[in-house]
């Protein structure tokens, strides 16, 4: 069996009581009552506690510590005498046995107190030392982790800075010119265009805007990956954010002939989130749902509180209340996501339909951004099939302080 710190019991008197102090106690009792007193430890070499001569007595009594005899109190030698309480002047001290018993009791209780204080100090000092060692171990482990994290961050920081600078400058600057000049052409600033020329210029402009959007998303993603975008957390009612986003997307949904609904329950979850980032999550998901839903279909968004607790888990009663989470579900009636694709669609640049003739555009970055953002909020996102057709995107986020507003 493993010996452990606090179970390692002191079993010898000397472990708990200072020998010199004990001698002083004995001397003081002897001065006070005139009866010789010794306190002997019980251990490997048992000291002699037999009476030195048949006419005299030794009073020997046990002192226990934690249920074990750890010492003996030896009073005497004395001659038992029914007369005087104690006569210390005689050649052998003469004393009443009851008087001796009282002294023995006093010594034992005093010694009990000494043992208890000694034990307390013994335990405390052992634990203190061990705590210091443990704390030292913790600190050096943490210092090593921090060192490693720091050098990793430095490297990332360097890479990210150079990448962001390149992308921002080298791609965005020429694109701004392309968009600007094609707009000028379209407005006829460079002379009147034929219908066909107007068409071409409009295509150049809309494709350039699409490209700009892609670059902005890429920058966003790289900022998230590099940890450059530090979220500003505050308590945010999830349903309110969903409602705001849906109001802003209502026009584009109705233009496409897709109905858009929000279901919210009485218990509205409040999450710790960066409001702007949270809006981005909802926006990407709802836009995505509208994009993949045919005219006449519908997109339903719901917000509620769910419990993600497993009754089999040890400590269910303690943990279940904090296993509650806020859930956002975005259900569409589009083509759905086939089983094998359900984790891969959150990878950057992944498209379910990778054929050159696919009907929907996009670079496959929206869901990757959603996943990064959700993870930055300590949440999780997954996709499920909708019944009878379509997909459901489910985002779970921890509730602020494990509570929900009523």
């Amino acid at each position, binding site marked *: *069996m*493993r010996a*452990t*710190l*606090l*179970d390692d019991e002191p079993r010898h008197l000397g472990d708990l009581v200072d020998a010199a102090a004990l001698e002083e106690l004995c001397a003081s009792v002897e001065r006070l009552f005139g009866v010789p007193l010794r306190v002997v430890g019980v251990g490997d070499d048992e000291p002699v506690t037999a009476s030195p001569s048949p006419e005299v007595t030794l009073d020997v009594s046990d002192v226990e510590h*934690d*249920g074990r005899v750890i010492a003996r109190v030896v009073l005497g030698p004395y001659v038992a005498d029914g007369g005087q309480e104690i006569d210390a002047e005689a050649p052998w001290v003469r004393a009443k046995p009851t008087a001796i018993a009282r002294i023995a009791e006093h010594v034992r209780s005093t010694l009990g107190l000494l043992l*208890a204080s000694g*034990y*307390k100090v013994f*335990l*405390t000092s052992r*634990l*203190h030392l*061990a*705590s210091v060692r*443990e*704390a030292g*171990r*913790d600190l050096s482990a943490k210092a090593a982790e921090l060192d490693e994290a720091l050098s990793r961050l430095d490297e990332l920081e360097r890479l990210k800075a150079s990448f962001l600078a390149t992308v921002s400058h080298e791609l965005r600057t020429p694109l701004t010119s392309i968009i600007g000049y094609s707009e000028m052409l379209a407005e006829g600033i460079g002379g009147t265009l034929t219908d066909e020329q107007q068409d071409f210029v409009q295509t150049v402009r809309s494709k350039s805007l699409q490209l700009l959007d892609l670059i902005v998303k890429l920058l966003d993603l790289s900022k998230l990956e590099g940890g450059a975008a530090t979220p500003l957390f505050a308590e945010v009612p999830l349903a309110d954010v969903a409602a705001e986003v849906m109001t802003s997307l209502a026009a584009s949904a109705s233009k496409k002939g897709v109905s858009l609904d929000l279901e919210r329950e009485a218990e509205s979850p409040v999450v710790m989130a960066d409001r702007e980032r949270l809006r981005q999550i909802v926006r990407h998901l709802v836009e995505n749902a509208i994009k993949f839903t045919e005219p006449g279909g519908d997109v339903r968004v719901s917000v509620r509180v769910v419990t993600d607790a497993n*009754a*089999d888990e*040890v*400590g*269910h*009663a*303690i*943990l*279940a*209340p*904090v296993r509650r989470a806020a859930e956002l579900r975005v259900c569409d009636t589009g083509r759905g996501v086939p089983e094998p694709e359900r984790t891969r669609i959150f990878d950057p640049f992944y498209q379910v339909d990778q054929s050159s003739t696919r009907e929907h555009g996009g670079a496959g970055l929206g869901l990757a951004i959603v996943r990064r953002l959700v993870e930055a909020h300590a949440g999780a996102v997954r996709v499920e099939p909708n019944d009878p057709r379509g997909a459901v995107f489910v985002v779970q986020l921890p509730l602020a*302080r*494990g*509570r929900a507003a009523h």
Partner: protein
Amino acid sequence: VQLDFAAREVAIKVVYYGPALSGKTTNLLALHRRVGEGARGRLMTLETQDDRTLFFDLLPLRFRSGRGDASIRVKVFTVPGQPLHGATRRLVLQGADGVAMIADSRESETQNNAASFLDLRENLRENGLTLSKMPLVIQFNKRDLPGVRGDAELAALAAQGREPIFSAVALRDEGVIETFLATLLVTWQALDRDHGLSKRLAIDGLELVSTAARELGVDEPITEILSRRVGGPIALGSGGAA
């Protein structure tokens, strides 16, 4: 656990765990008040000025088995609840045989309870122990305060979970003995499974806990005492959960 079959002696270590100020020391003080002279050792508490345990508290208890010749020592430790004393908690948990988790019933403490419980799991792991194998009893203390999780909700949680749950007001001694006896029983049962204690020492777990109950000044049958739990299984026979 420390076993000395020659001396017919078993030393069991029970640890009271929980978040800061949840009432672990208060539980120990209440036990100390209730336990008879014959069974109790000196309670050692090391507290600072603001009532917080610095290292640990220790209440050594000693029970003789029903037939008298075996001696059961129970050392009840508390850990310091404040997060900063992680190293001390880890040390106190070394060699623990059973754990009583003392939670604060107030809803505002929900996160702290959970954090402390996860900290328990982590510290057990550091000591090479597994939470799922550790005998565990949960006490929801401070039931008398405003803002506590309701009785019905607590009962529902207890009914779903795997461990015995007790409610308590440790300051008024309520639920303290129940929690301790249940912890002692589930701890004994686990040690019995691993070391065959009952057979080798001729002591029955229920009999031991009944003796402990009498030492704590409770004359009711042990089944009666344990039935006052909010929920969760306790095996009362020689095997299998009730």
